[in-house]
């Protein structure tokens, strides 16, 4: 851990900038090499472009015990973390979660689960899940729990954009950023062999594949929920939905992908070298992945055990963890997706203006 991560990152970037051997690995280096000196915003942008693939660390001739003691993935992880904390809205929340991630994630899930347990006292109204908790009650709870994090993220991203001197966004910037995220281009290693995350200097695509399972699994689940909402309101077709329905066709594979992906990411993170991650939030990051695993696992379990006596308890746990997940989105590892996208948009602008 560094006393002043931004200043330390500046020192290291200066060394990288006079070496440049890692230029081909990812977007961080071309973005770094256009500078002669680094503002705090420049360093913030580099940190959010870094995917912690660690290829540069293993290739580096200046890592400890060399006196230059370079550890770019490590120092950028700390800068990145601080940049999310400093731009979070409301600010106090970010810090609290990152310092105590595991606890907060677990407590939130349990607390919310209990809250729903209490919802038994409210009258049910409908079939399946709605017999337990009426649709209107769900909406009343989840709509604000969904909208507030979006608002908080929007404010955070606006602050980020100002800090990294973002320019007015063009459509091309956004398509470039989404194109990069869609394939996790920056985890392909530049040469297409992947990254050296879990087994010293051996390249693999494990992290890239697992991350995409999580990302696409999550998007499928989200799409399943959205499609259910549309069916409910536009077509007057409330849940439950059968196996051969749009929500299930999206949600089942999504849930399975999310389960495998999150379990894999936890294993991978445990295998990874701690000193190349931000130790202050490593526990919190495990907590977040675990929460996402619980969301997906209980979601699948709900489908499997929908006709049993366990439905009520499962529904409480599932919806409780979903609620915690939504509420914590701006203050958990989940935020990284949004900040990374912003960094990629900014990087597309950089490439546009230097080409």
């Amino acid at each position, binding site marked *: 851990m560094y006393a002043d991560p931004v200043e330390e990152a500046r020192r290291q970037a200066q060394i990288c900038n006079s070496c440049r051997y890692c*230029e081909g*690995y990812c977007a961080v280096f071309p973005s770094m090499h256009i500078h002669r000196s680094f503002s705090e915003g420049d360093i913030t942008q580099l940190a959010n472009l870094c995917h912690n693939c660690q290829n540069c660390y293993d*290739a580096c001739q200046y890592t400890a015990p060399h006196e230059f003691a370079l550890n770019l993935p490590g120092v950028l992880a700390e800068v990145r973390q601080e940049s999310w904390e400093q731009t979070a809205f409301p600010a106090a929340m970010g810090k609290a979660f990152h310092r105590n991630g595991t606890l907060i994630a677990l407590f939130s899930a349990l607390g919310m689960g209990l809250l729903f347990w209490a919802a038994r006292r409210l009258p049910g109204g409908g079939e399946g899940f709605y017999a337990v908790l009426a649709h209107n009650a769900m909406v009343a709870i989840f709509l604000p729990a969904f909208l507030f994090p979006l608002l908080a993220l929007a404010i955070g991203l606006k602050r980020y954009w100002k800090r990294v001197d973002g320019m007015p966004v063009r459509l091309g910037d956004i398509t470039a950023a989404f194109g990069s995220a869609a394939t996790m281009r920056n985890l392909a290693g530049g040469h297409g062999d992947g990254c050296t995350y879990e087994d010293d200097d051996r390249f693999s695509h494990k992290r890239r594949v697992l991350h995409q399972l999580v990302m696409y699994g999550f998007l499928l689940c989200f799409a399943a929920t959205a499609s259910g909402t549309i069916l409910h309101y536009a077509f007057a077709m409330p849940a439950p939905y059968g196996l051969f329905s749009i929500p299930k066709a999206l949600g089942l594979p999504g849930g399975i992908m999310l389960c495998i992906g999150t379990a894999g990411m936890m294993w991978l993170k445990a295998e990874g070298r701690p000193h190349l991650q931000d130790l202050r939030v490593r526990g919190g990051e495990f907590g977040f992945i675990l929460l996402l695993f619980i969301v997906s696992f209980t979601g699948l379990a709900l489908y499997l055990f929908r006709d049993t006596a366990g439905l009520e308890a499962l529904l409480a746990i599932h919806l409780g963890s979903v609620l915690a997940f939504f509420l914590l989105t701006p203050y958990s590892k989940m935020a990284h997706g949004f900040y990374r996208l912003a960094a990629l948009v900014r990087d597309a602008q950089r490439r546009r203006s230097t080409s």
Partner: protein
Amino acid sequence: MTQPTEHYDIVIVGGGNAALCAAMTAAEDGAKVLILEAAPKDYRGGNSRHTRNFRCMHDGPLSVLVDSYDEQEYFSDLIKVTDGKTDEGLARMVIRASQECLPWMEAHGVRFQPSLSGTLSLARTNAFFMGGGKALVNAYYRTAAALGVDVLYEAPVRHLQLQGNRIERVDYEYEGVAYSAEPRAVIVASGGFQADLDWLADAWGPPARNFLIRGTPYNRGTVLKNLLDQGVTSIGDPTQCHAVAIDGRAPKFDGGIVTRLDCVPFSVVVNRRGERFYDEGEDVWPKRYAIWGRLVAQQPDQVAYAIVDSRAIPLFMPSVFPAIQADTLEELAEKMDLPPEAVTQTIASYNAACGDTSAFHPTERDGVHTSGIEPAKTNWARPISEPPFYGYSLRTGVTFTYLGLKVDENAQCQTDAGPVENLWAAGETMAGSILGQGYLAGYGMTIGTVFGRIAGREAANYVR
């Protein structure tokens, strides 16, 4: 776990590019190979870990290389820098073999990237390793391990016993214990002797103790000396080393690429007394940095000081250590521990000698020169007049030494009595067989790859 007592067909002394190319080639030919690397694992790979590319002939676009680069052009580039002191036969053989090295390297795990920003001039001639030389070394160690090559780190070789025309025994240390091995063949790929400051001072004189060593502290030439003492034929001028002017604040060893300073052509360079001593603008920096290693070595305390003004800063690659900065030349001189009066005097007369600067052009010789001062500055001569002013100290940084083992086209070593039948050499330790002086960027890795593969093949053939 590698056991020091196991039997091996081939022992390879050294753990850099040439050693690994030899090891992989021999292992693929069926030989049981042990690498004895003097450095700990973190510092394995000798000077290869500091390299960034290799120079490669190609008839047409090849991997990241654009256009073509034929044998004749390659050879004439080489001759220009060595001033003709080149073994033409071996040099051409290396050049021709370089083309098929590139796919071989890729097949053994090396990945290439387009030439780095700031190195456009090499995009056609030099294939850059993705991540640099340490990434190449890592990939080769992985591949070698998969081929069954064993490696001992922190295992310095102390003695090779030459008996008649054979190496009979290899004495080395490992974890503080002395071992002897009796392999059927030995390949020496342990670099030059530049990290042995005593030897350097013997060869060059006491000022050599003030030189900085750009690469590994483990190239002490122990095995080279041991073999030469036993009558193995040497090649190369024992008093010569390849030295360049680098940032004076660089670490004593292992500073590598980042300690280079490209500011000299846009500077006034003075010595400790505040006097100029050579034409800073003689030619573009890639053609002059080696000469400046020597020039700085001849100054008092082997140190010099480059001074530029604010206009020059964007014209060269950023330096690893920030420049010393001041608003006046007096203040800058004081900060750099130079006599302020002499410095201001030198720069005042230089400034007065500058003429029309309208043709100033940073990337080519522009003929913007001084008149009436000695030494003249013949290009890029703009007054040092726009504050803030910036200063860098310059010292001599040694890259490699020329003295080595003489080999034939099969990488085989020899004595006056003829070839040593089971001893081969590859890499920097035999590069003097090809390069008599000077250096061509990326050619060292080409020699190491070509001769490493030859040595591996020949040794495997011999033990079969």
